[in-house]
């Protein structure tokens, strides 16, 4: 309470002209207020699922090393030190010793120790926690701690992505905060609502359905970030969130849609910047009969029919209509940003006459007065399920409906609540659905969503149950390869296989658009986390407004560390 009073006194002083952080010199100070659509789910690195939570956690916590803007996932090339100031590979590459920065401290003043690293990995692997990250650190066997400043990661086997697995997937958590709490109780614990990390921003408050506030950690081992405060202003309604940005209540809105750009352009003080995200959109076919999973789907079980539907789809027109210039037609279950993706992957071309001919040859002929195809009295008709919360996917479904109609295929569009759609996906009781996978810097996640294991697991993530051992084998080989050329070759074969099998129509690789106030000086927007460079963003002094005058909240007693040289 005393700290709060002190902070308010400081602020009062700041608002009448004495600008706290600025008076200490340097180009620090200023407040970044962002519009966001929802609360974070939970502020625990190993449990979070929402983007807002990831943004908060990435600024409050640190990883051992940062992947860097190249997003390389093989070896440690491009990774830069964070909590670990250096690392040493074992000769057999089965272990990596991370040497912790001696100046690194938790926001409560405790030093960051190797025990914290061991605890982070061990707790994430604990099945009673139910961490979504557990499946991505399976290559790590354990972490040992020869001394308080060294954490040694032990791996089951040498692999190209072992360094990436070790440092990218999880920020390090403080053992002294969490060890007394049973894993099953982490989500609801107070510690989850008041996170203590070691990042360049300290947590200040989270008012559900209103705001999350962070303040600069002025004693951080990596130096003081340029912006004093970062605030997420939560507005559940998209239009409200957008209006807050347009009216200047917030400085940044990261979820602009193409149709908003014209409105933003009316405000000379607002700018936009697009960046490549890590998501792709597709229309997925269920290859199994929704009523009897042991049998193939009566329509989509046939590869040639799926190829015909893909041929009947003008993907370029779809993308142009829905995304304008802010997306490219997807290449397959991959992204152009991966250095293993060949941008010249051969696609099934848009060829409506050929699609009609294939459908004819398969016995699906136009016999009815409404120009729709039937075979043995059964119409060529199916349902496309889309979440009613996604305007983009609904638009895509409507346009696809029209394109299929031209080929004589009747498609019904079914708009569903997201939980209902998710259940249909999981139980595989859908005909077709328009989905989107948000992936990671590693292209390896493709196995979970399109591979054999994801199909055969009771409720795996390969909802369409596409299975082709050639695809799996090539992805496995690619992931096991240290040589970039070989890795790319294997992935190309895998992608080419799945593209020709057409378990889905690969629709779009959207670009994301961030709207921001021109007083903000942004850095690079990284595809996996556009917010990761916020500590380097700034607001020039001559462009600061009232809210920029609130200085960083003082650090709690005892938490002052040394700045990095």
């Amino acid at each position: 309470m005393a700290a709060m009073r002190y902070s308010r006194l400081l602020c009062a002083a700041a608002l009448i002209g004495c600008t706290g952080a600025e008076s200490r010199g340097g180009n620090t100070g200023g407040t970044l207020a962002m519009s966001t659509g929802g609360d974070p789910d939970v502020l625990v690195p190993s449990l979070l699922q929402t983007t807002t939570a990831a943004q908060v956690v990435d600024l409050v916590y640190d990883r051992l090393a940062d992947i860097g803007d190249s997003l390389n996932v093989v070896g440690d090339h491009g990774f830069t030190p964070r909590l670990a100031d250096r690392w040493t590979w074992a000769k057999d590459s089965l272990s990596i010793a991370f040497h912790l920065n001696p100046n690194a401290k938790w926001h409560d003043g405790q030093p960051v120790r190797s025990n914290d690293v061991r605890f982070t990995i061990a707790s994430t692997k604990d099945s009673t926690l139910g961490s979504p990250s557990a499946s991505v650190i399976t290559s790590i066997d354990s972490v040992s701690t020869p001394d308080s400043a060294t954490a040694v990661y032990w791996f089951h086997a040498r692999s190209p992505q072992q360094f990436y697995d070790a440092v990218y997937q999880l920020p390090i958590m403080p053992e002294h905060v969490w060890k007394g709490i049973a894993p099953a109780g982490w989500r609801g614990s107070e510690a989850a609502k008041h996170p203590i990390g070691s990042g360049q921003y300290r947590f200040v408050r989270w008012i559900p359905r209103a705001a999350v506030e962070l303040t600069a950690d002025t004693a951080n081992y990596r130096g003081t970030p340029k912006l004093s405060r970062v605030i997420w202003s939560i507005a559940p309604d998209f239009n409200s969130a957008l209006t807050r940005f347009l009216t200047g209540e917030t400085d940044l809105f990261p979820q602009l849609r193409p149709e908003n750009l014209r409105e933003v352009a009316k405000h000379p003080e607002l700018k936009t910047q697009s960046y490549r995200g890590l998501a792709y959109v597709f229309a997925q076919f269920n290859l199994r009969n929704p009523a009897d999973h042991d049998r193939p789907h009566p329509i989509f079980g046939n590869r040639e029919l799926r190829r015909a539907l893909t041929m009947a789809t003008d993907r370029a027109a779809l993308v142009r209509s829905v995304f304008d210039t802010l997306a490219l037609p997807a290449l397959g279950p991959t992204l152009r940003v991966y250095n293993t993706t060949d941008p010249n992957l051969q696609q099934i071309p848009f060829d409506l006459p050929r699609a009609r001919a294939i459908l004819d040859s398969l016995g699906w002929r136009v016999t009815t007065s409404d120009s729709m195809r039937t075979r043995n009295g059964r119409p060529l008709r199916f349902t496309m399920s889309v979440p009613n919360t996604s305007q983009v996917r609904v638009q895509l479904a409507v346009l696809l409906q029209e394109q299929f109609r031209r080929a004589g295929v009747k498609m019904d569009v079914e708009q569903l609540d997201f939980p209902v759609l998710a259940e249909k996906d999981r139980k595989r009781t859908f005909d077709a659905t328009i989905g989107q996978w948000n992936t990671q810097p590693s292209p390896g996640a493709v196995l979970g969503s399109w591979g054999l294991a994801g199909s055969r697991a009771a409720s795996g993530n390969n909802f369409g149950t596409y299975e082709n051992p050639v695809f799996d084998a090539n992805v496995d080989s690619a992931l096991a390869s240290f040589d970039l050329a070989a890795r790319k070759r294997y992935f190309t074969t895998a992608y080419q296989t799945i593209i020709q099998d057409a378990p889905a129509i690969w629709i779009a690789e959207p670009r994301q658009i961030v709207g921001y106030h021109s007083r903000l000086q942004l850095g690079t927007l990284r595809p996996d986390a556009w917010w990761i460079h916020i500590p380097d963003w700034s607001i020039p002094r001559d462009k600061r407004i009232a809210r920029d005058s609130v200085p960083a909240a003082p650090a709690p007693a005892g938490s002052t560390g040394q700045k990095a040289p």
Partner: protein
Amino acid sequence: MIRYIARRLAQAAVIVAIVATITFALIHIAPGDPFSAVLDNPNVSETVRQTLRAQYGLDRPIPEQFVRYVGALAHGELGWSFSHDRPVLEVLGSALPNTLLLMVVALVGGFALGIFVALVQVARRGSIADRILGGITLLFFSMPDFWLAILALLALTYWLPIFPVGGAVDPVMHEYMSLGGRLLDRLKHLALPALTLTLLASATVARYQRAALLDVLPADYIRTARLKGLTERQILRRHALRNALLPIITLLGLSFPALLTGAFFIERIFAWPGMGYAVVNAISTRDYPLVVGGSDTSTFLGGIAGDRMERGSNMVTTVPAPS
């Protein structure tokens, strides 16, 4: 009186039990997965989903979940919200004051404005003013609440930036304002959602009130009042209005529970952190405990309040008409 209160509380408990049972059954029957958000991440395995279900007790048979829920309810616990990761009581406890504030302001404003408009209309019945006001009230009466809210949001925050866009306070500066500044900040944020609800409520009230006033005007005591030489304004205010208020008081009683969760669109569009938004959002995320807890709370509070207002209106009817 104590016996009366005890009887009413017992009745409310029975109603809450019935509502809880029905809501519990409906929300569990509805298709959907409380942890569907994790499905956007291809790395999340079914094992994780199963662990989450076990952590929240969803792996148990539904009858067992219901028995556990009833047991907790008997001890005054409403369970644990999946989406907020905190007790349902805490979630509702933080939302209820916001909803009550918005509701009271909207009800007071809406009823005052509606009654005033009705009085003006009846005083000038048949005139152009009556018809214009009738047209305006019909417009607001027919207008969807979310549409009016979006229009108000655009008009008064964007085209004419008078009010802040949403929320209960300025999330960026509120903590750093003086006491007076904070109060003003709160009022500024309250203005727009309250104005929207006020306009919507006043339209309904005005139409009811006008009809009720016209019903009582031919009554003998009104004629007597005229014969006594009272002005039309005095007759309307002192005699007609008092007797024509009864259906409006009943309407007030009905509006209270409806507004507790019925102002969802207003709360959502203005990012007002109230009960309606919390509970309806919980339906879409399949946050079972919050849905059932919210229904129980609004049933209990709405029922009690509605009952008190109905009783109030009955007491009014026992008061002899002014001579």
